[in-house]
């Protein structure tokens, strides 16, 4: 699964730590999601999309391997 968390976060000039605090996870988890090492749960994906004020599909997309 690919995602545009880093791009969306940059648009809002938000740090990983700030995003992590808003969705109640660790900064390490946000870092892993951005790097594609961890696929978040539906709940967390929805929370992240809500912070960016957009649809979850805009932030997380299936790639060819999924």
């Amino acid at each position, binding site marked *: 699964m690919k995602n545009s968390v880093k791009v969306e976060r940059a648009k809002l000039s938000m740090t990983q730590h700030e995003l992590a605090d808003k969705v*109640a*996870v*660790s900064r*390490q*988890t946000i*870092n*892993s999601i951005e790097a594609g*090492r*961890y696929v*978040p*749960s539906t*709940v*967390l994906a*929805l929370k992240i999309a809500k912070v960016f004020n957009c649809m979850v599909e805009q932030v997380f997309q299936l790639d060819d391997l999924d």
Partner: protein
Amino acid sequence: MKDQFFEPKHGFLPNVFRRIGIAVIVGVLVSIVTFKLLPGQFKLVNKELLRIFLLNTFILGLLLVVWARDKVEDEMTFAIRFKVLGMTMINGVLLLLIAPIIQLLFKEPVTGIGSQQLVVSMLLFYLLMYFVQKRAR
């Protein structure tokens, strides 16, 4: 929205128990070194009873470290714990199977692995793999 599956606070001890566990482990190690360095001072102590007591206390310390939650416990740490738990179980079974073969190779009495040895090795393996997996993320 509350997801019960990803509610990692449930079932774990508060983070302070990790420090208590480390203190217990350090205490046991210091005791072992003391008994080894000053054997003449503790002649009245039943050695076998002492060995079991120290080993059980060491296991308790490891259990507290394993059971205590991280400062920030979220769904990723929960996923890591789940993965490492599976690895630990497989490691334990393999150790159980391989131990008699190793004893045969080294021409020792084939007694298999003791329950305390198995528990200690599984707890140590869990801790090691947990921190390795966390670092790798």
